[in-house]
């Protein structure tokens, strides 16, 4: 951990003092800062001293690799080797450099080990530890009733296996997909729950990051496409039970079906990202109210804090519910897509007379 003075890279040193004295509280910026990824893990600010964990920055730009710690960006007006964190626009919050024309451009590749990456690895170690120890207790207590952590997780595991995998995919093939479904369910759940905790090592908005949800959705998409059988593709190209004039001469239905193949994972990605981010934004919004009113008068701030904290607690409880619901929905829809992809052709008359 490193302690350093925070300096906004675009502000000049001469108005530094002035800025400290009349730094306005900007709710929007604060909220966005809290729910987006960052190159360091900011833990606490005491007075004007920020405590944060510096993380390695790895860039590949113009044929050159750049490795440095994010703490380097706290000196020299936030500029290191020409790179600085953008303040506005599409790339705000990300490392950019100025090109010849003075416009901000991203480096070619940015492999930086960011806050969310660290949080992902933390949650993965947590998951690995939890489930391997549970698996060991299954081996140790073979054939006996579950105990401790095992008995807490067993109903959830059985729920995912029976009510998500088996009922959506079918008795014959569900066992192949159960490991993936269990993994995404618990990965999303644990990160949703860690995201509600406001302190280190929680607080990283992993499942509210579109990149992370995109990767999860991509896994579902790849597995769906890979395991799809002939019937699935026939369904897309020549959907049964649809009037012929929707297929010929303008292939309206095939176009819609092919779009559906891609919109399904896209919707998975957006749903999880939007739900988790929205929850965090609302909670941070309530907290921001305290500071907004506190700037007007201290008394008003304390008064509003009672209401704000009450609403925040309500939202936190709601978020716990949402954490489970979103993990369930993502897993269930993935299972349904696998089920659709592996469903065998119906030998019924419904495909003929329509």
């Amino acid at each position, binding site marked *: 951990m490193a302690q350093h003075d925070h300096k906004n890279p675009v502000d000049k040193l001469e108005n530094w003092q002035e800025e400290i004295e009349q730094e306005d509280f900007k709710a929007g910026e604060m909220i966005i800062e809290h729910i987006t990824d960052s190159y360091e893990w900011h833990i606490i600010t005491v007075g004007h001293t920020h405590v944060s964990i510096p993380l390695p920055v790895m860039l590949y730009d113009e044929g050159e690799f750049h490795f440095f710690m994010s703490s380097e960006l706290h000196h020299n007006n936030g500029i290191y080797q020409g790179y600085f964190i953008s303040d506005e626009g599409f790339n705000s919050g*990300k490392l950019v450099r100025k090109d010849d024309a003075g416009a901000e451009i991203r480096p070619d590749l940015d492999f930086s080990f960011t806050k969310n990456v660290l949080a992902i690895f933390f949650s993965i170690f947590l998951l*690995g530890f939890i489930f391997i120890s549970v698996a060991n207790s*299954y081996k140790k207590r073979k054939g006996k009733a579950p105990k401790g952590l095992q008995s807490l997780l067993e109903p959830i595991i059985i729920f995912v296996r029976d009510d998500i995998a088996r009922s959506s995919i079918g008795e014959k093939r569900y*066992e192949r997909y159960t490991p993936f479904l*269990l*993994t995404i369910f618990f990965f999303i759940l644990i990160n949703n729950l860690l995201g509600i905790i406001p302190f280190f090592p929680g607080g990283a908005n992993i499942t509210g990051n579109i990149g992370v949800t*995109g990767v999860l959705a991509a896994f579902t998409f790849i597995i769906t496409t890979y395991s799809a059988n002939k019937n699935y593709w026939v369904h897309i190209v020549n959907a049964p039970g649809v009037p012929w004039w929707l297929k010929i001469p303008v292939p309206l239905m095939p176009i819609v079906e092919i779009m559906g193949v891609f919109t399904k994972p896209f919707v998975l990605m957006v749903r999880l990202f939007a739900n988790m*981010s929205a929850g965090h934004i609302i909670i941070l919004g309530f907290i921001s109210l305290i500071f907004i009113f506190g700037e007007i008068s201290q008394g008003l701030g304390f008064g509003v804090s009672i209401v704000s904290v009450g609403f925040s607690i309500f939202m936190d409880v709601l978020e716990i519910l949402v954490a489970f619901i979103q993990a369930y929905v993502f897993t269930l829809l993935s299972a349904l897509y696998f089920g659709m992809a592996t469903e065998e052709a119906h030998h019924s008359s419904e495909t003929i007379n329509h």
Partner: protein
Amino acid sequence: MSLINPGFGLIIWMTLAFGILLFVLAKFAWKPIMAALKEREDSIENALLAAEKAQQAMEELKLGNEKLMQEAQIERDTILKEARKLKDVILNEAREKSIMETKNMIQSAREQITTDKNAALAEIKNTIASYSISIAEKILREELKDKSRQMAYAEKLLKETSLN
């Protein structure tokens, strides 16, 4: 805008990390857990089935026992009935036999008595006859002691005969 601008690095790291997680959990957690769950479910199901079977067997056994008992009862009843019948037959036979024997005995006794009586009667007759003869002899000797008397008697006899 930064909200919907995914970081390239994050995607790479996430794919790597999630891939590792998926592999590790699938191999070291889900496989043994699923196997253990299935094994336990199977063993529970087997135990339930075995219990049901045992119950069925017990019921069958019970039914068999009852049948056996019923049969035994029926057999006992028939044996008792037969015994009773036999007893009656034997008793009746004995009674009849005894009656017959008594009858025979009475009959033979009667016959004995008749023969004895006849013998006795014959003896009495013989005795009486011999006595009569001896008495008649004695009377005749007395009557025919002298010649005159003999003559008189012979005459009398002659008279009697001629009259006839």
